[in-house]
């Protein structure tokens, strides 16, 4: 049986924290509109700048620069893989689903069918001090999509 720590830091999280898919931040020169968001967690100094491009109603590209803990960096990497090519509306509801799991204090287990690899972050919700780490990139994506719409 896994310890609490191994539940929190699942291998997929540790791997993504190093692989950092979508990083570094890149210029987008394709079709559509681009939005960008900078998020900072003043408690620990975790930081991310995320750029999302929306073309034809779908998320065409996500890139980001970030500095922070394994949870925050892995979350950004997993999110990048998950949302590329998905319809914008679907991505918005994914963000909502992820937020609901994160805020559940361990009561809601993420649906892997919906959230894919992001379901690995379910364990984070039992650590209220770390929920912001996991949410950082998702909030940045949400704001980027809003900005791209405007």
């Amino acid at each position, binding site marked *: 049986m896994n*310890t*609490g*720590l191994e539940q*929190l*830091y699942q291998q997929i999280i*540790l791997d993504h*924290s*190093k692989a950092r898919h979508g990083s570094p931040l890149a210029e987008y020169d394709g079709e559509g509109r681009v939005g960008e968001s900078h998020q900072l967690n003043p*408690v*620990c*100094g*975790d*930081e991310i700048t995320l750029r999302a491009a929306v073309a034809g109603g779908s998320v065409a590209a996500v890139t980001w620069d970030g*500095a*922070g*803990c*394994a*949870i925050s960096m892995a979350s950004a990497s997993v999110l990048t893989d998950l949302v590329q090519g998905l319809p914008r509306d679907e991505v918005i509801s994914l963000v909502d689903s992820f937020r609901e799991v994160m805020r559940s204090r361990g009561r809601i287990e993420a649906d892997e069918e919906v959230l894919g690899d992001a379901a690995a972050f379910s364990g984070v919700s039992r*650590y209220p001090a*770390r929920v912001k*780490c996991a949410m950082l990139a998702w909030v940045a994506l949400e704001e980027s999509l809003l900005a791209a719409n405007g």
Partner: protein
Amino acid sequence: MPVVETPVTLTPSDAGTSYAAMTDAEVHRIRNDFPILGSEVNGKPLVYLDSGATSQNPVSVLEAEQEFYEQRNAAVHRGAHTLAVDATDAYEDARTAVARFIGARTDELVWTSNATEGINLVAYAMSNAAAGRGGEAARRFAVGPGDSIVVTEMEHHANLIPWQELAARTGAELSFIPVDDDGALRLEDAASVITGSTRIVAFSHASNVLGTINPVRELVQLAQAVGALTLLDACQSVPHLPVDVKALDVDFLVFSGHKMLGPTGIGALYGRAELLNAMPPFLTGGSMITTVTMQGAEYLPSPNRFEAGTQRISQAVALGAAANYLTETGMQRIEEWETVLGARLVEGLTAIDGIRVLGPAAGLPRIGLAAFDVDGVHAHDVGQFLDDKGIAVRVGHHCAQPLHRRLGLTATTRASTYLYTTTDEVDTFLRAVAGVRPFFGAH
């Protein structure tokens, strides 16, 4: 694990005083006075290494506060009934105990919420003086364009932001005594920063990140030579080593109760009596006045001048009990014990691959505190890993963002000790830290 044979003494011990050094056996007895230290976290015995942030409370402190509410609770300095007199006595006795603890006179010890409020009190008094409040006697506190306020690059935000604000309000300039790449104060540059236009020099006695003890004597001499005031942030020294304000010869000194076995919500400002009695007040209202008319008011002398409104009475009483507990244990002995622990921390951490300890290298003086960077693992993850093993440490920038930036870091992990920390706890911590990089696959 490294064994430290001889403690490095940070200040000369009193010649002729002989006493037994603290031992693990005594520390285990001391721990019985602290109920929380017997608790478990995540199924493991709590290893509390975050006393630099807040310390734990002995039963005598908890009882002092409870006893006050059960037997003496009343407003102080008003009312003639017996309880009011008892409450006032308890409040003022605590002031005397805490003043004596730092070598001050009773009327030189002003209660504040914490060190942060103490620094703000002085900073706002200075801008009130700049606005003409306090008349001629307060002129020496006034700052304005052409004047400088000096702090160091290693300050806690509490000893930085109040001065940034004072500079912004008054047009004075904020200047910094630099630190070198290892975080040591560049004393050789201090003389060019502390100049004839300097009105106050505010600096920390012991750094909450680096663990260094700053050269108070040298900085005070530089300040005095140009007629500048001095303020010492003693948050990390008053709880951990003998502090005598008269020997340090500073004008102001601040510290927080919750870092020295006391409750939260209480701290103190020491100021030389002639300064406090000339300084305009910061917070104003009831209990700090002599005569009030519709148009104006006359103020009481220190310390009441700076204690407007109903005060933190039970907390002050409990802080008095905390000072007594520390005095009974002996501040010199506590300092020596923590010096041993600090050296053990640094030597042990330095021996672990991929760890960079901030501040003085092993073998150099430091308090019982070590902040460090783990190569390839973020401090937040280090803290989480240690918490899983019941070990409580501080992670982040420790309210010193500019210092971290200066050292090329955003966040570090910090372990800090106190009189109730055992060498076993330090070793448990060191063994756990050795497991951090393997767990996270850092290489």
